[in-house]
């Protein structure tokens, strides 16, 4: 089915970037509309793909819309794109947030041409990670993302932006250095760069020359830095806090999901026995991440930093779901990635909006905004409740699946205990979210915020778009989980469950 859909989705944003950087005039309006066009079309196409996607049970594990061409003959690398149930929702999410990121950036006036060029390049590289089925292509897309992020944080960021940018780059490169070694060892032991071939043939292809566990951990380090997993998380608060709003949305919304996706796609699929053997370590790290992340979040006084820290805790659920290694827990982890992308995307967009309108980000100085900015208050409350997992929001569906799936999983000893500890994280989450809402929006209105602007039309558009998705997935999660199941069930088959 070489329909060219995926290539179009993948390369339209970068085409827009080239157009903006080298061809168009310097007029801000032209650049903004071009960026919007070149992100909207991929989004529309991805929705069409989502509608056309074959959801029948026979299609489980099947790669759809596949495109394959020989790319570098001497090392047997292919230009190989395709989506299955696991990657398609992530592609839709990326294209969706990529388009919204352009809308969120509408009020950027500093070096507009460069800004949108980098933002579009960023979208292409993230899409590339989710679409690639060839390890070399996957790695290239994984690495390209670093350059736009470096510039976006460094130029348009705030606070210690230079420190945060280089910290982000060095952490990411450090992780991907190990990943590259892992990919090279996979290539060395199997002679193939195709994820499908390696996945299908399993460890049988790995010869005895190298212990499979070593390759597993080399790959895992790269993904663990990105997700982030507990001891590798310290780049995240800095990068999220100092990045411009739209970039925080992309970063929290889809970029860190590349880590979770990579773990499922490479670590679990290619090394099922190794994953089972070491799952308990990762589950423990997940629980530490959940509890530690939530506890640290509680202590934050910076508005944006608080949201950033909450991501560490939420990504702990993803890790827990993945390495509980059950079918339900894996679906839950995938849904948590999707849901967190939308919810935290919205939270960051709202924080950016409040900071833009009030020029204040210290929680101790904010307060009583509910009177002055009612629309922002309502939307923010919905996003916050979704983040703490209120039923009828996507956050509830995702966390529920993670906990139910993990609790009933059989691969990890004492998993019930770990899961219960993890559930405690939800309580802390409710604590910091509600406390934050109270500190920002409730209490007596403060004089200095009189006349603060509420959301304008453009802002309402992206807010309501995000809320619609949160509610839709919360009320009818099957729209996404049915697709995820198609991707997950063959992996669970490999795990023998």
């Amino acid at each position, binding site marked *: 089915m070489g329909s060219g859909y995926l290539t179009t989705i993948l390369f339209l944003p970068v085409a827009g970037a080239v157009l903006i950087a080298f061809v168009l005039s310097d007029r801000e309006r032209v650049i903004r509309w071009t960026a919007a066009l070149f992100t909207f079309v991929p989004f529309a196409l991805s929705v069409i793909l989502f509608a056309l996607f074959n959801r029948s049970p026979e299609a489980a594990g099947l790669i759809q819309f596949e495109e394959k061409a020989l*790319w*570098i*003959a*001497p*090392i047997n690398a292919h230009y190989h794109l395709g989506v299955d149930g696991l990657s398609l929702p992530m592609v839709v999410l990326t294209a969706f947030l990529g388009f919204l990121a352009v809308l969120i950036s509408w009020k950027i006036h500093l070096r507009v041409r460069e800004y949108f060029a980098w933002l579009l390049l960023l979208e292409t590289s993230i899409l590339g990670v989710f679409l690639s089925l060839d390890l*070399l292509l996957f*790695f*290239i897309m994984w*690495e*390209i993302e*670093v*350059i736009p992020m*470096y*510039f976006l944080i*460094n*130029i348009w960021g705030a606070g210690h932006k*230079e420190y945060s*940018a*280089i910290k982000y*780059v*060095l952490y990411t*490169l*450090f992780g991907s*250095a*190990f990943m*590259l*070694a892992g990919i*090279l*060892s996979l*290539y*060395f032991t199997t002679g193939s760069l195709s994820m499908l071939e390696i996945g299908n043939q399993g460890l049988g292809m790995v010869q005895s*020359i*190298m212990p499979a566990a*070593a390759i597993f951990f080399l790959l895992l380090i790269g993904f663990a830095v990105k997700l982030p997993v507990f001891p590798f998380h310290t780049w995240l608060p800095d990068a999220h806090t100092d990045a411009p709003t739209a970039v925080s949305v992309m970063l929290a919304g889809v970029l860190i999901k590349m880590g979770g996706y990579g773990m499922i796609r490479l670590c679990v699929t290619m090394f099922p026995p190794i994953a089972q053997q070491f799952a308990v370590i990762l589950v423990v790290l997940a629980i530490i991440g959940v509890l530690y992340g939530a506890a640290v979040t509680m202590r934050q006084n910076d508005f944006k930093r608080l949201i950033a820290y909450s991501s560490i805790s939420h990504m702990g659920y993803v890790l827990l779901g993945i390495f509980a290694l059950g079918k339900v827990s894996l679906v839950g982890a995938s849904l948590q990635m999707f849901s967190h992308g939308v919810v935290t995307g919205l939270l960051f967009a709202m924080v950016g909006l409040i900071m833009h309108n009030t020029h204040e980000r210290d929680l101790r100085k904010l307060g009583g905004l509910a009177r002055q900015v009612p629309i922002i208050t309502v939307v923010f409350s919905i996003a916050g409740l979704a983040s703490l997992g209120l039923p009828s929001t996507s956050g509830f569906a995702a966390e529920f699946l993670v906990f139910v799936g993990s609790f009933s999983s059989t691969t990890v000893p004492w998993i019930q205990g770990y899961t219960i500890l993890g559930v405690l994280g939800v309580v802390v989450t409710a604590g910091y979210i509600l406390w934050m809402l109270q500190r920002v929006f409730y209490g007596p209105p403060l004089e200095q915020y009189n006349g603060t602007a509420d959301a304008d039309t453009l802002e309402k558009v992206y807010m309501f778009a995000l809320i619609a998705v949160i509610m839709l997935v919360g009320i009818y999660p099957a729209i996404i989980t049915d697709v995820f199941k198609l991707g997950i069930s063959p992996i669970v088959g490999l795990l023998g469950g």
Partner: protein
Amino acid sequence: MNLALFIPEIALAATAVIVILLDLFVEQKRWLAQVSISGLVIAGVVTIAMWGGSYPAIFNNMLAVDNFALFFKVLFLGVAFLVILSSTDYVGKFSRFQGEYYALVLLATLGMMLMAAATNLIAIYIALELASISLYALVGFLKDKKSSEASLKYLLLGAVASAVLLYGMALIFGFTGKTQLGEIAQVIQALPPMTLLASPGLLLGIVLLVAGFGFKIAAVPFHMWVPDVYEGAPTPITAYLSVASKAAGFAIILRVFFSAFGLPDWLSLNWGYIFAALAAISMTIGNILAIPQANIKRMLGYSSIAQAGYLMVGLAAMGLASADNILGQSGVLFFLASYAFTNIGAFIAIIAISNKLDSNLIDDYSGMGKRAPLLALALTLCLISLVGMPPAAGFMAKFYIFNAAMQQGMIWLVIIAVINSVISAYYYLRVVRVMWLGETASVGKVSSSGALRLALFLCCLGVLLLGIIPGSVMKLAQLAASMFIY
């Protein structure tokens, strides 16, 4: 003997002589550059036309005309072409001797071409000296304090290295009684292993060869000359040194070690591990010392030491591999091709910028993204390629060469190498940050000549093409390296 196989070299030597003579008569010195370039183009076209054929060795088996030599000849000619293009702005700094400058570049190129082709210890030494002596003179061409100091330092250390090399060659000749690489190999393979082990002379000879060639490729611990020479030399010559001279060193190492000492396996294993250790030390020391540098030419000097380290990963893989596995060799060739585009590109951008600024300090590059966006973008691309990030050529080169090491099970070396790439990101990106984020000191636009822009464009094109569709050049590298299969 068929002299037709020697046409590229003859053309180059003739062009050098013509340039010197022409210098006496023409007023318009830019003619000299044009004549030099046409000489290079003629030599290049003839060389490319010879590609793929199988020819007998010439000059009594002194020079081979194989794909391996042709690959390097094209590389050297291409580099010289780019260097001369980018010199046209720079030569204004020399009040006199422009003709000699071009002629010396051509002669150095000739020496390197001979190095790539030489299959006899004596021919190797002569070719190496021809290249080196031309470069000693070129390094001192600015005639200011730094340039003269650099030249003297290069000359003295180079002479020591030559002496070491010669001593190593003498030991090997004393042990085997041969100077022809193929014959040396036959003698060594015919001997019983115990005799080899009992004779430290041969092993000492090999170690001395490593030291002598290690100076050429700027490997630690033979790197002391690099920062000063890179800083003092005229910038186009720095570019030339960092790429062509290094490539010539690798060409000769590949040929000598594989032809003469490739078998028996335990011997190649030994020098393979020597190169692996040198690789690890070179990249670590080079990268760490590059971090505090304030002068961009010095920084790139240390970076070139680190790059030599990555390249030696390929040599180590070659030593450990069995004789029919050419991944290490072709990895080195591909890396050199991509490194040539990348580093020359970086230096051309530096030439253009420093012509305007009259400074090579990284801090003075502040705000270059506004003053000269295209130059800054080109330099950014080259620096990203040096880090080894996609979509630039440097990534593919590293992927390919580390893959060769992985195939030999040297995962420890690969991990050291990839971590070094991360360290290097820190200092390369510092330049990028200064250019795009720093405040502009002045608003003056940075102008550059058409020749320089053409050269820079060609380099960036090469960096991108080798980074995105490297297949055909990898094929060429494999073809060139397959010369080594017995």
